[in-house]
């Protein structure tokens, strides 16, 4: 396992320049918005010139651009991501409040996605061109083509309005002690199983909606990748050796994992960067709506904070994916 450790360190180091690149791009993008952000922050209509000047100073907007960039980089590494003029709180505090909601939703929907999507794909591959295969294709097609908004409203109508078994909106009840900011995990850590079950009800509908949108892609990728594997020589050999059922599935799955992990990682990255429509319909206080509000109100510190966060999330997911490849396929480590 020695070379795996070395591999991890090498990969980690190679991401450092990428992080710097993300930082610089984040900074530059936020400076080309064609409006004066200060006026927006000070409330527009009735703003007074003294206050405008004061805010310009506080956010270094009166300095030349390269100085602003250096001040920004120093601040980011010091953990000072600025104060959002809209929420009046440090951006990191805002992120710490909203990002766990997104992470929690991403975990639940990824579990649903993997638990439903992978078996669907495998079944479709094994029963190629059968009724099941076509059925999976139709489900996949609906998942990809139906607007998330529509699915969300339909689910809400059925499970909340008509059946009355699930709540409509919100995250549920905050556990008394906050460890991670994720309600489900914190309920478990605080041994509050009643709250865990209660909060589970709130996350089911947004989780399913979010999973449904990625389901089609996952099922298709698993099917194609499994078909590739199925047609390879070693499967024929395995079949000839008399392997059946689960034993055979294990071989198929393991060898078709790389593309599945790639697409799953991309899906998770997408979910983590915020699913705005789903957050809106279910009043789910995640990072997506926060980002949209920040953009709409030209909230520089928040825009930069969220962009940086999403950049880091993608870098981290790529990193984990790379390591996963290496674990699954030793050839990658070379």
């Amino acid at each position: 396992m020695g070379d795996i450790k070395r591999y991890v360190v090498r990969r980690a180091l190679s991401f450092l320049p990428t992080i710097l690149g993300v930082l610089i791009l984040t900074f530059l993008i936020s400076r080309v918005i064609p409006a004066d952000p200060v006026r927006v922050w000070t409330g527009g209509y009735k703003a007074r010139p003294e206050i405008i000047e004061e805010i310009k100073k506080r956010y270094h907007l009166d300095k030349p651009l390269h100085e602003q960039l250096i001040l920004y980089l120093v601040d980011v590494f010091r953990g000072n991501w600025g104060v959002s003029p809209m929420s009046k709180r440090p951006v990191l505090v805002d992120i710490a409040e909203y990002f766990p909601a997104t992470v929690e939703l991403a975990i639940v929907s990824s579990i649903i996605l993997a638990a439903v999507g992978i078996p669907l794909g495998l079944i479709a591959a094994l029963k190629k061109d059968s009724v099941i295969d076509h059925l999976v294709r139709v489900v996949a097609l609906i998942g990809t083509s139906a607007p998330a908004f529509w699915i969300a409203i339909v689910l809400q109508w059925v499970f909340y309005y008509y059946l009355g078994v699930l709540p409509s909106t919100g995250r549920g009840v905050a556990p008394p002690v906050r460890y991670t900011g994720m309600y489900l995990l914190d309920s478990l850590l605080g041994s509050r199983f009643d709250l865990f079950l209660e909060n589970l009800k709130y996350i089911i509908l947004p989780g399913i909606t979010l999973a449904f949108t990625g389901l089609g892609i996952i099922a298709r990728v698993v099917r194609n990748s499994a078909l590739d594997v199925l047609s390879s020589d070693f499967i024929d050999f395995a079949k000839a050796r008399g392997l059946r059922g689960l034993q055979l599935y294990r071989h198929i799955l393991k060898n078709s994992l790389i593309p599945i992990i790639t697409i799953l990682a991309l899906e998770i990255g997408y979910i983590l960067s915020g699913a705005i429509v789903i957050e809106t319909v279910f009043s789910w206080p995640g990072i997506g709506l926060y980002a949209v509000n920040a953009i709409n109100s030209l909230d520089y510190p928040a825009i930069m904070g969220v962009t940086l966060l999403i950049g880091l999330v993608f870098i981290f997911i790529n990193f984990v994916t790379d390591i996963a490849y290496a674990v699954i396929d030793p050839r990658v480590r070379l």
Partner: protein
Amino acid sequence: MVNTKMIAVVVIALAIVGLIIGLTYLPIMQKTIQQTSTPTPTITPITTPSPMPQPSITIPQASKYVIIAYRDPQPIDRESLVPYSNINPGFLRDPIMDALIKAGRITTDASLRKTIYNAIQKLSNDRLSLIWIVQAREVRVYWDWIKNIYFHPTFVYRVDDLSKEPYAPNPNKFVIGESEEGHSLDPAVTYWGFDWFIIHQIYERLVAYERDNVDYVVPSLAVAWAHNEESDEWYFVIRGNVVFYDPWENRTIPLTPDDIVYSFRRVVTMHLDPSWLIEEFINVDETVVLSEDEFKSILSKGLYTEFKGENRKVSSLEELLSFFGYSGSVAGFVKVKLNYPYAPILSVLATIPASIVSMEVVEQHGGVKPGEENPYLYDHPVGTGPYYLVEWVHRQYYRLRANPYYWKGKPSIEEIELRLIPEDSTRIMMLKKGDLDIALIPPSLVDQVKDVTLGGNKLIVEVAPSFWIYHVTLNCERYPFNNTAFRKALAWAIPYDTIISTAFNGLADQAYGVIPRGMFGFQDDDITRYTYNKDMARKMLTDSGVDPKSVSITIIVPQGYSELEQIATILQSSWTEALGIDVKVQVLSRPVFNEKLMSGDFDVQVLAWGPDYIDPDDYAGPLQAGGYTFSDVAIYTTTSPNEISKYIDIEDATIITYKDVAIIVGEAK
């Protein structure tokens, strides 16, 4: 592996190239942006607005003459002009309107004030720096198990005034469905209507409006008030036995007169968005606490007081308190010094920024810093009002509970929950299911909540007048909007009825001037009632001398307001059809829109204005100010036309008649 390495290299290379480009070109780009956003001062010669009634030497017959004489009119520098503050958003320079606005501010005579605002209304209908479109109606949708509901134009309602039937689901809880959360619960900070609603349940002010009455204020933390003859010094008797309830440290703190002075000074020191409501009118340095002896000695010389339409001169505390019918205990006395006599000061003192905070709480948690918000007060409100905040979970809900120490007694509804549901269709679903008692429903979706019942209960859809005025602003610094006849041509080419039926689903009434229907000073009997009239529009266009083929207009609207976008689209087609001019519509993100609005970088924009406090000055000032300063404005009244020339030079004066009164505005002699 090679792939990711290459990607990293490409990203860095891109970043560096971007950085170089950014550093070299960005400063230039920013400069050009700035240059284009400040309007070039003289594209076309700006003609001085022709005053409505041509200066006439013949004085009309009138039973009364009101003379407004201004001295040393000075146009304010272009750079110092702030729309909605010292200039109307259409940037029309107008000393006559400014003199009228100033006169309306300083006069304390109610009937004279009314006359002045009647005149302002007429002038705003004729000058048309803004074309008045509609006054929107408000839609309220709630279940019939809520009783005694009412709506106040500025503060909506207070939950302790309501009650809930015992058979309602959750009879002790009032659940409100809202769309977006507010900005802050600090009354010195926020200018957001939804925040104001919550603060209204928690904090109180010296005076208050009783339910939906907008005619006069009633005692709240002050039990009585009086003022000197000049009306620039106001005295308040503070209610005794009132406590702040601090749920965060579970304690009560008695209200003292010091809290009142402290609260006003705090707003001014912090100097944030809503601070103008205090700063503009109150001199906080000379606003002080008085001892009983000091107040009694001032009273003994005689003070004036008005309450419920009656007025009285009083000279003793007993006399003052009995006029207000108060016999309880008193916590002390406060003198509020005004910058100038301002008749609607009591309405200003009833607004949210004039809320009374506890000096002890604020001083224990960060105090007051100039130009800065207090992060503790942002979400730790401590007030004397009927409810206290239990929990504010961001973007999910606010929970308030009945204050057991409230001086009027604990309210009957135990809890208020404000649920934040951004999606309209989800909110409607929750309302129909009975999980919400009342919810925000956009006018366009009202049909979805009509005739809804739930186990014998009915969802009530009520439509009430509001003070929101939708208007089209014309940039009078630019050609051809600097031409009054052209502006009138535009006003005659607007299908007001179509706008009401399409953009407002029928829930609006046409507006004719700056003052909304239902407000003091409103009149619609001596104004021009613009309609869609092609002949009139074409005639005005010919009069203006503007060649329609040479005109290309861009209408800007902020994103996210469907009614504004619809108005703009209707204007586009009707102006093109009736006048043959080229019209484009541009929907801009709110920040970009605001930037153009404030710098005057637009042709035409569409927006709405709502009340900060109930007085026509809150409309006339921001929407019609003319960009002038005077060293003095004086008002004289007479019944003899011969006396007019004693005060002003009649040759250059502007005369506005309303009914049998003539208002004559001119430079003082």
